[in-house]
C-alpha cells in the first residue's frame, strides 16, 4: 500500500544483493510507520480494550488535509471537527448540569468548543494563503488530534465496560462512518505531496542511495517512539496510563479516572495517526479508503506482539514492512494477500502457546 518500490520492479530484474538492499530499505521505511501505528494500537488496546481500527482514518485525514492545504483548499474535515466538537460540548455540558458540577463547564467549552474553533478559524484563514510547509503540517495535525478524544467521548466512553468483542464491532462501525465521511470531505481522488527532502546520499555501488525522505520517515518514527518512552516513564499522566493498562480496576481504586485515561490514549493515538499520515503521503498516493489497509498492517504488527508488548509490536511492524516490500517484488498483485497471510503462522503460534497455558492450568 504505502510502497514506493514499484519503481524498481521491472520484468528484467532478478533479486540480487543490490535490489535486496533497496527492498530492505523500503521495508524498513514503511515498517517504521507501521510500527508507530502498531504502538498506537497497543496503547489504545491496553488502556481502553478497544481494538481501534479507525486509526487508519486518522492517518488518511491527516494526510489528505495536508494535501488539501498544499492545493490552497480548506480541508473538509474542519466541518467534521466543528460539528463533533459542538456535539461533545453539548453532551458534556448537559452531563455537568445534571450532576451539578457547573464549575466544569468553562473547561468543557474550552476543550471542545474553543480549541476546535481556533484551529478551524486558523485553517480557514491560512489555507488560501498557502503558508509554509511546516505551518501546513502543524495545521493538518492540529485538525486531526482533537478528533481523537471526541471519538472516544462519542463512541466508546458510553460503552467503556462492554466486552472486547462489542468494542471491536463498534470500532469497525466507527471506521465505516469515518471512511464514508472521508469520501464526503476529500472526494474519491488520490493525493500525494512532494517528498520533504530531495537530498540523496550515494553509498557507492551504483544505485544504492539513502534519500532524505527515508531519513525523515525513520527519524520521525524513532523520535516519536523515544518521546513516547519518556512520556510513559517520566511523566505522571504517562504513568497513570500505564497503571490503567496494567489493571483498570486497581488504577481506579487509587484515583486514576478511566475516562480521562481513555481521553488521553485517544488523543495520543490521533496524534500518532496524523503524523504517520503526513509521513506516508510524501511516499505514496493516498485515497480516502487507504486507511483500512494501513491500519490493518499496524494490526498485524501488533498481533505479532500479541497486542500487549510494545517492542514486539515494533518488531512485528518492521516484519510487515519487509514482507510487503519483498512480496511486492515477487508477486505485486498478491502482496496484500502475502502480508495478511503472515497472520496465519503468528496466530498458529499464539494458539499453540495458549493451549500450553491451558494445560498448565489443568494440571495444577
Amino acid at each position, binding site marked *: 500500500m504505502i510502497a514506493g518500490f514499484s519503481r524498481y520492479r521491472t520484468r528484467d530484474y532478478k533479486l540480487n544483493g543490490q535490489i535486496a538492499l533497496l527492498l530492505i530499505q523500503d521495508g524498513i521505511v514503511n515498517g517504521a510507520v507501521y510500527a508507530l501505528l502498531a504502538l498506537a494500537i497497543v496503547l489504545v488496546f491496553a488502556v481502553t480494550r478497544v481494538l481501534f481500527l479507525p486509526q487508519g482514518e486518522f492517518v488518511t485525514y491527516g494526510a489528505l488535509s495536508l494535501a488539501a492545504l498544499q492545493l490552497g483548499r480548506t480541508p473538509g474535515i474542519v466541518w467534521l471537527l466543528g460539528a463533533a466538537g459542538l456535539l461533545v460540548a453539548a453532551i458534556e455540558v448537559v452531563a455537568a448540569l445534571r450532576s451539578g458540577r457547573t464549575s466544569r463547564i468553562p473547561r468543557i467549552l474550552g476543550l471542545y468548543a474553543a480549541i476546535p474553533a481556533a484551529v478551524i478559524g486558523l485553517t480557514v484563514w491560512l489555507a488560501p494563503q498557502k503558508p509554509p510547509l511546516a505551518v501546513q503540517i502543524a495545521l493538518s495535525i492540529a485538525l486531526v488530534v482533537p478528533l481523537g478524544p471526541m471519538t472516544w467521548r462519542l463512541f466508546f466512553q458510553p460503552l467503556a465496560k462492554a466486552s472486547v468483542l462489542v468494542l471491536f464491532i463498534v470500532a469497525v462501525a466507527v471506521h465505516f462512518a469515518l471512511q464514508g465521511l472521508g469520501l*464526503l470531505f476529500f472526494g474519491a481522488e488520490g493525493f500525494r505531496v512532494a517528498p520533504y527532502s530531495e537530498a540523496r546520499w550515494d553509498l557507492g555501488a551504483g544505485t544504492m542511495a539513502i534519500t532524505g525522505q527515508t531519513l525523515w520517515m525513520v527519524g520521525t518514527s524513532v523520535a516519536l517512539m523515544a518521546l513516547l518512552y519518556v512520556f510513559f516513564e517520566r511523566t505522571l499522566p504517562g504513568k497513570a496510563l500505564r497503571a490503567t493498562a496494567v489493571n483498570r480496576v486497581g488504577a481506579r481504586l487509587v484515583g486514576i479516572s478511566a475516562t480521562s485515561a481513555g481521553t488521553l490514549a485517544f488523543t495520543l493515538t490521533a496524534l500518532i495517526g496524523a503524523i504517520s499520515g503526513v509521513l506516508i503521503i510524501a511516499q505514496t498516493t493516498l485515497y480516502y479508503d487507504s486507511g483500512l489497509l494501513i491500519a490493518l498492517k499496524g494490526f498485524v504488527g501488533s498481533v505479532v506482539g500479541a497486542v500487549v508488548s510494545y517492542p514486539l509490536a515494533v518488531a512485528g511492524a518492521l516484519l510487515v514492512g519487509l514482507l510487503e516490500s519483498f512480496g511486492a517484488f515477487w508477486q505485486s498483485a498478491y502482496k496484500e494477500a502475502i502480508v495478511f497471510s503472515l497472520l496465519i503462522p503468528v496466530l498458529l503460534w499464539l494458539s499453540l502457546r495458549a493451549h500450553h497455558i491451558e494445560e498448565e492450568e489443568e494440571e495444577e
Partner: protein
Amino acid sequence: MRRGPPLPLLLLAAAFLVAPLVLPSFYITLANYIGLASIVALGLVLITGIGGLTSFGQAAFVGLGAYTTGFLTTAYGLSPWLTLPIGLALTAVVTLPLGLITLRLSGHYLPIGTIAWSISLYYLFANLEGLGGYNGMSGVPPLAIGGHELNSGADFYYLIWSVMAAALATVHNLLDSRPGRAVRSLRGGGVMAESFGIDTAAVKLVIFLYAGLLAALSGWLYAHFMRYVNPTPFGLNASIEYLFMAVAGGASSIWGAIVGAGLLTLLKYWLQDLIPKLIGRTGQFEIIVFGILMVLLFQHARQGVVPLVARRYLKPRRVSVPRQAAPLAMHASYESVDFERYGGRARYCAHARYGRLYQWVMANEGRVALLDADSLVRGDLVAATQGLGDIALVYAVDEPIWHRVLSGFSTYRPSAQSRRFLGRMAGLAALNLTGGRARYSLDQTALYVCATLARADGTPIDTLPLEYCDTTFQDHSLVWSVTQSKQLAGRFQELKSRILQRDGEEGLVLSGQR
C-alpha cells in the same frame, strides 16, 4: 416451547407465498437480495449471537461458493447441481484449518484473523488468472429444475426463500437439541461450558463450519441468480454489512437474521436513492449512516431489534418451577421467586441466592448435586435430587455470566479439590467482570478485590483456600468476600469501606437493587 406455529406466523408465511404474484418485479428482486443476505446472516447469528464468536469473513465464504460455481460452470460446463457440493466441500476445506487456528484463541484474535483472510481472499479473487480479475465472469448459466429454467426473479424468490426456510428450520432444531444447548452455553466465555464437560473447541468448530457452508450456499444461489460474478460483493465491506445485519436484527434470535437483513437491505437501497439527492454526489455514503446507526444500536439496544420488540409486545415466556423441585434446603423462599413478577428485584434475589447457596454448600459438604449442560441453559428451575443433596439452582438465560460461572462450583464433588475449584471460579468470575459483562455490584467488586489481593500475595487464584468468608447485607446488596486469611480479611475490609465511600463514582455501582 410452543406446540404449533401461531396464527401470525401462518399469515406471514401465506403473505410470503403470494408476494411474487402481486408485487412489482423490483420488490421481488429486493426480496431475493434480502433472502440471500439472511441466509448468510443466519450463519452469523449462530456463531456470533448464540455462540459468542465473531467473523468478519463471511462474504469471503459467499465468494467461495459463487466463484466455485461461476468458474466450473463457465470454464468446464459443469452442471450447477454438481458445483454446489464442490463449492461446499471447498468451503469446508478452507474453513476447518482457519477455524482450528483461530477459534481457540481469545475473543479478539478471531475478528482480526477473519478480517485478514477476508482481504486475502478478496485479492485472490481479483487477481487469480482465469477468474476474470476485477471485471469478473459473466455468462453463468441459470439453474434448471427438471427442465424448467429459473430465469425470472419470482422463480428465484421461491428457491431462495425455500432454502432460507430450510436453513432456519435446521438451525432452530439444532438449537433445541442437546448439542444446541451446548452451543448456547458458549456465549460468555465457555469456561462454564467446559466445567460441564463440553468440548467447546469442537462445538465452536462445528458452528463455524456450518455458518461458512450457509454463506457458500448463499453465494452459489447468488451466482446463478445474478448470472455474473465479480469480486466486489465479497470484500471486507460486505462482510461487515453481514455482521451488522446479524447484530441489528438481534444476534441472539434466529429471526433476527431475516429482520436484520431486511432492515439493512431496505435502508441501503433507500439511502443510495436519497443521499445523492441530498448532497448531489454519488458514492458509498450510506456507510456513514450504517456506521453511526450501528454505534447507536450498541449504545442503546445491544440486543438488537428483535429482542427489543419481543420484550415490548410479546408475552415473556414464564419461568416455570417444576412441582417436584425440592426447595433449597435453607432458603426455600428465595427459590419461589418468580423472575417476571419480581421484575427488577429478581437480580437482587439472584445475588442473595448465590450467597446463601455458597454458605449452604460450605455447610453441607458432601451433599452437593451434579448438574449437566442441559440445566445450564434451560432457563428454568432445575431440581437435582440425586439422593445426595436437595439443592436446586436457578439460571435465567439472560442472567449475567458470573452468576452462572459462580454456580459452576456445584458441578464438582465437594472435597478439598472442589474448594480449590470454587476459589478458581471466584477468580474467573472476577475476570469475567473485568471483561465488562456486567456493571460492578458490590459483591462482584469484593470478589475482584480479594482475588487481586490473593494474587498480590503470590497465591494463584485457583489455590485460594477460602478460609475466611464474610457475607453481609448492605443497602439490599450482598457483600460477599472470600479471602485467604484473617490478616488479608482486615485489608479487605479496609478496601471494602473505601469502595463503599466511592458509591456512584465512575461506574463502581454498589447496589444490587437496580
